[in-house]
């Protein structure tokens, strides 16, 4: 019972701090007589949603598709690559250093090249999100697959367990908390990747919309775009967190 009350209190405090931020924002604009094009009030920001020209839904869906698409690809290929590494030590020694070098490339710098190669659009922006997310997932997954107690492997081998049984019963579940820690980092990066992609070249999406309304100094719409982008990121992060709660025992989670 005590635990429940504590949890309720924690949620309540979190909600209050968010609301307080909005109130502070409102008071600052109202009392400071800040011009609307510098800092719009919360109400003005919400009103920006009413401008049909901005096609919020469509742009939001485009950005969401870029973030989720790039992220899901990075999860699939990132975990897959790490699995290949765990099966072949030679492959890991051959490819891993290359990945480390490639990861040193600032992914943003690839933007103009991606545009030259693939033009504008959802696909190239997905690739940008993918490029940013891929490496942390490979790294944490590979580490998780390696971190198995040697004695535990001996225990399985003493009853003549196969390589495959060691993998499915011990290595993979053991790596799960590590995989999730990489996925959580990547979830935040994916949002940044997709938006940078849109800034560099796009004809749709919330990042694209921001550049459009910047020209007309519609700061309220820019604010709204940032809020929506953040919300998409929070949804993605929330899904990952929920999956972690579902799949990883509390004690094993990496904070």
């Amino acid at each position, binding site marked *: 019972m005590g635990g429940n009350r504590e949890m309720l209190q924690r949620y309540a405090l979190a909600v209050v701090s968010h609301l307080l931020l909005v109130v502070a924002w409102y008071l600052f604009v109202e009392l400071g007589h800040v011009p609307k094009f510098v800092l719009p009030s919360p109400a003005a920001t919400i009103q920006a949603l009413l401008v049909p020209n901005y096609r919020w839904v469509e742009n939001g869906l485009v950005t969401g598709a870029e973030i989720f698409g790039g992220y899901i690809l990075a999860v699939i290929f990132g975990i897959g690559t790490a699995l290949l590494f765990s099966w072949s030590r030679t492959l890991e020694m051959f490819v891993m250093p290359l990945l480390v070098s490639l990861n040193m490339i600032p992914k943003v710098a690839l933007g103009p090249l991606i545009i030259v190669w693939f033009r504008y659009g959802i696909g190239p922006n997905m690739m940008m999100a993918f490029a940013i997310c891929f490496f942390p997932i490979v790294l944490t997954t590979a580490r998780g697959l390696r971190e198995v107690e040697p004695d535990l492997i001996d225990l399985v081998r003493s*009853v003549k367990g196969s390589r495959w049984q060691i993998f499915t*019963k011990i290595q993979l*579940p053991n790596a799960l908390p590590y995989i999730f820690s990489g996925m959580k980092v990547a979830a935040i990066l994916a949002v940044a990747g997709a938006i940078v992609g849109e800034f560099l070249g796009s004809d749709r999406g919330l990042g694209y919309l921001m550049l459009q309304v910047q020209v007309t100094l519609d700061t309220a719409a820019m604010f709204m775009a940032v809020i929506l982008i953040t919300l998409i990121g929070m949804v993605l992060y929330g899904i990952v967190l929920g999956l972690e709660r579902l799949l990883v025992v509390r004690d094993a989670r990496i904070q």
Partner: protein
Amino acid sequence: MNQPFIHLAGVKKVYRTRGADFIAVSEATFDVEAGELVSLVGPSGCGKTTLLKILAGLHSHEAGNVQIGSPSQPFDPSRDVGMVFQQPLLLKWRRVIDNVLLPAEILGLPMERSRARARDLLTLVGLKGAEDKFPYELSGGMQQRAAIARALIHDPKLILMDEPFGALDALTREKMNLELLRIWREAKKTIVFVTHGISEAVFLGTRVVVLTAGPARMADNFRVDLPHPRTLDIKTGEKFGEYSRRIYRLLGME
């Protein structure tokens, strides 16, 4: 002549490193009768863990002869070994009962029967009621009890224990020693127990094998003639002291 359950003769194991060869085990010669609880005692680097892994079939050996099993006690290396390590090594994501079932799963034993057996074993090791808990909800001693149940699940003839109580506090360790003797009497298994605790070795063992380090070799092998079931009282007795001194002397501590 009655053939012993385990027969070791002149067993030697050498690790080849780049600089020089490192002798991990040498001159290991002793027999273990079925149903005995043999303590392997010695300092770090005396090869006791290596010897245990040779018995488990996890390590090869260079010279000598290792024979496990007899006509009356046939031994199947794939399913007659149960292991307990210093760390409980329970899988964090499995409930206690599912941890106990791990070897049964790997061996492909019928799950219905194994599950019933796992419950019985958890009762045997004093963990009745903890079946559905996760490892993090158990104390260190309780986790090690679960690890012992796991080593028994596939009904192996030989249990190999590598300093199983070495990570526990002194009081829990004493208690686990008594518990192990009870489990051993009830489960009727042959146990080889590695420890660096001299009094633990004498208290538990029907026989003690002393190994010394630098270079690793077997120094002694004697029967412990103390009555069963043993209680903590015997530790204050004359005989217990004699056995302990005998080991201290061999290890150059007297």
